[in-house]
């Protein structure tokens, strides 16, 4: 379990998260949703151990995340930031290998598995500057998978991707969850959260306003409360789409 208990976070003098409690389960895909500035990325970073809570605590299997050695924490939690800039023009293979850093670069097999899982075999020697947006996103996710983390936390991984690559990435993350990893994603597209997540957290101004199965957490009432717009769902389960209530 990756759990937050009474988590508050103050950044730059502003209250970003306020007394937030939740517990994420392994083997599930959890979507974190909310309007801009609701605190989604901050929550994800706090859960990854990258923000020290101002109050409250974050625990991983009962162990306080802040007290954990950074390398041990890194072995267990893989974090994929929104930022996709790679400073040096390294080859895909070397980029993916960085994921083994918390393991002191032991376990080359995991690098090969991640390259194979994300279909990067033909690109392994290609410099990142010569990759398309989708290829780069796959390489960056492969870097996280190469660390074989028990938790994968990704901040808007679909933001720069076209539909086909979004679907592929969703499939990979779903497979990781099938393999027992806990997956938490910051997602802007509510239909993606509705159709693909096992659970949804909805944030508003740093507070958790809904936490549960997608159908309940993303009910029209909750959407109106969190985003201030009236919307409704259409379509069948697993293929729902969100439309304006005025339509």
């Amino acid at each position, binding site marked *: 379990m990756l759990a937050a208990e009474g988590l508050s976070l103050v950044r730059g003098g502003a209250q970003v998260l306020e007394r937030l409690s939740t517990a994420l389960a392994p083997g599930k895909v959890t979507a974190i949703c909310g309007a801009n500035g609701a605190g989604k990325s901050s929550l994800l970073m706090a859960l990854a151990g990258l923000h020290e809570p101002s109050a409250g605590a974050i625990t991983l299997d009962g162990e306080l995340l802040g007290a954990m050695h950074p390398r041990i924490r890194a072995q267990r939690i893989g974090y994929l930031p929104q930022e996709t800039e790679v400073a040096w023009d390294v080859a895909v293979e070397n980029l993916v290998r960085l994921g083994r*850093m918390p393991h002191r670069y032991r376990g080359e097999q995991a690098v090969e598995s991640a390259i194979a899982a994300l279909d990067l075999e033909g690109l392994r020697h290609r410099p990142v500057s010569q990759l398309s947006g989708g290829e780069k996103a796959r390489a960056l996710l492969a870097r996280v998978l190469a660390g074989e983390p028990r938790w994968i936390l990704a901040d808007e991984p679909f933001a720069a991707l076209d539909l086909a690559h979004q679907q592929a990435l969703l499939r990979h993350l779903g497979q990781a969850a099938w393999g027992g990893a806990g997956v938490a994603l910051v997602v802007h597209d509510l239909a993606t959260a509705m159709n693909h997540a096992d659970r949804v957290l909805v944030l508003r101004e740093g507070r958790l306003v809904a936490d549960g199965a997608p159908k309940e957490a993303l009910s029209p009432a909750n959407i109106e409360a969190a985003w201030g717009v009236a919307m409704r769902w259409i379509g069948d389960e697993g293929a729902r789409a969100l439309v304006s209530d005025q339509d």
Partner: protein
Amino acid sequence: MDRATLVFAGLLALLLPLSLLAGRVWIDPASTPNAMLILMELRLPRALLAVVIGVGLGAAGAAMQGYLRNPLADPGLFGIAPMAALGAVASLWFGFGPSPWLLPLMALAGAAAGMAMLAAIAGRTGGIALFTLAGLMIASLAGALTALAITLSPNPFAMSEIVMWLNGALTDRSWRDVMLAAPLVTAGIGLLVFAARSLDALTLGEAAARSLGVRPGWLLALLVGGVGLTVGASVAVAGIIGFVGLIVPHLVRPLTDRLPSSLILPSALAGACLVLAADSLVRILPLVTELRLGIALSLLGAPFFLWLLVRMRRGRL
């Protein structure tokens, strides 16, 4: 041993004996009178000092570019070299120039003060932006104080000594300077090598690096210590030798996988080659007085920097 290390180790092995023989007077060990004396007491310490300084500046440049994720970063820009220079200028200002130890020691004290200021301002959070700004401001302050020292020189001789010293040179250096700089540069490179893997992780950005277990405060301490020792020692024995740390990683990068950890040792060797070659060149040039090494490298480095900017603008960097 990787390709880049081999290439520059081979080049250094070629350049070192050549630089011993090169000079206004070329030495033929078989026929030049007192050849061994000249070699052992003048040329060899000077050549080894060039190697020591080049090794330090090259490694510091590679580490600094890795840390700032910027191919235009130069270790001289971030306060430590100007502070070391200020220490040396102060010793000349007070007339300690003739003392063999006071000038380098005061330069080292200046470098240490620069490191302490950087660590105190940027160390707590380990933020790269804060580090850069703090470094630039420390450099600016040290530059202003150096200019003030020149303006208020007690006599024209001190002023000329300060200006000459600031231009950087390896003229008339002895084994004492090698003995002073070599251990400090070695220790500094040790710290930078230790930081290398963390610098690799920074390729993915600060947040990703931290998620991979990098401790920003610890990395900053290693970097300030490593750059402080290498650059501080270099300024202490030779004055300001700029642009080596900027140029060298660019020569090395195409021969490596481009990760900072692959660059540090080959950049150290390439730095040694560059300083050694430049110092040999300034000795050979038929000028009335020997061209100062610092000026020669700046004449080479500044156009190189502009060329980098043009390449960057065209998106080729």
